[in-house]
């Protein structure tokens, strides 16, 4: 069972790596921000699979933290993207 779970973790890691390669090569900043999503789901899946494969339940906590901080990182990305230079926009239209 452990080797199957390791193989699955390796597969998801390869998918995340491929996704990272695609995302980071694109010029648009919006694409770059997607890495938070990619790591938020793929990274969590890898860690959960590793936790089950090595029978180390505390690793699940790392996955939990990763899920939380990927969302936090995404907020940091969006805040610092170009175009949000104005501190607080006068109108709340957002468009």
């Amino acid at each position, binding site marked *: 069972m452990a080797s199957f779970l390791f193989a699955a973790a390796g597969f998801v890691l390869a998918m*995340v790596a491929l996704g*990272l390669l695609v995302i*980071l090569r694109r010029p648009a900043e919006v694409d770059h921000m997607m*890495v938070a999503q990619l790591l938020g789901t793929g990274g969590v899946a890898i860690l959960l699979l590793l936790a089950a494969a090595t029978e180390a339940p505390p690793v699940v906590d790392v996955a939990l*933290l990763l899920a939380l901080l990927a*969302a936090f*990182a995404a907020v940091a990305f969006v805040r*610092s993207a170009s175009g949000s230079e104005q501190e607080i926009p006068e109108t709340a239209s957002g468009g």
Partner: protein
Amino acid sequence: MTISSAFDVGLVVLILAVGAATIAMREAFAAVIGYVVYGLLLAMAWVRLAAVDVALTEAAIGGGMTGMLMLGAVARLRLAEGNDIRTSLPVRLAAGVLCVLVTAGVAVAILSPPKTIPTLAPMVMENLAQSGLGNPVAGVLFVYRALDTLLEKVVLILALLGVWSLAPDSVWGGIPGLRVYARPGSTLTFLAQLLPPVGIVVAVYMCWVGAKEPGGAFQGGTVLAAMWLLVMIAGLTSVPSIGERWLRRLLVVGPVIFLGIGLAGMVLANAFLAYPPGYAKPLIVAVEVALTLSIGAALGLLAAGPPERV
């Protein structure tokens, strides 16, 4: 090659590729995003090295907090000019040779381990039972090397003082210049309402579980800091001015309690930072709770930067 070592090789290649991309990227924004990814991947490497405590810290600080800090700086430096200076080719080549030499040196050191590997693990395990803790790393942090941990809190406060002291005199005691991203009724507001309760539960859990399993004050404090920053960025609470009494008390409560218990140890247990027998665990838990709050406040304020307005 077993399947787990194939996984490790893949992870190492990915970490190195992302690390190299972080150095080579032209845009600072993309480089910092690369660094965040790098931090999260490094957490996986720590998991593979069976250091879950370190993995938690790296994910929280390397991935989350450092990214937040640097992205704030990127957004400001974007307005600056004069970034077109390039390093000349000979300098690059020389630097490359130097770096290859350094890498080779470290690699040789790694590939030739000493015959008897020095370790303190048996000593830690022998004496861990006395402290009532189950997590050996927490044991080292709060029992055997408690002085390091105490001084590290002092370093955090000193760094914060350093950051604050960079503010112009006119705004001393004012409000940190954390850029907010407030759009009333936006999705960010919703996220900032949803995530912090979850984050606080996670922080309490980390702090509580730290005595027995991986986790502890650092990890819990970092999560608290992240959630606090999130709420401030969304504009749900205002950024407090650094002169606030409660803020300063919060910053020192952890170190002060730690120091107080340490000094009490001189009377009750015959050594500075020693715990009286039988009371070690409750005292350590009390110190951890106070430290979690102080670390959270200190990290949050470090990321918020020096005061900019009164």
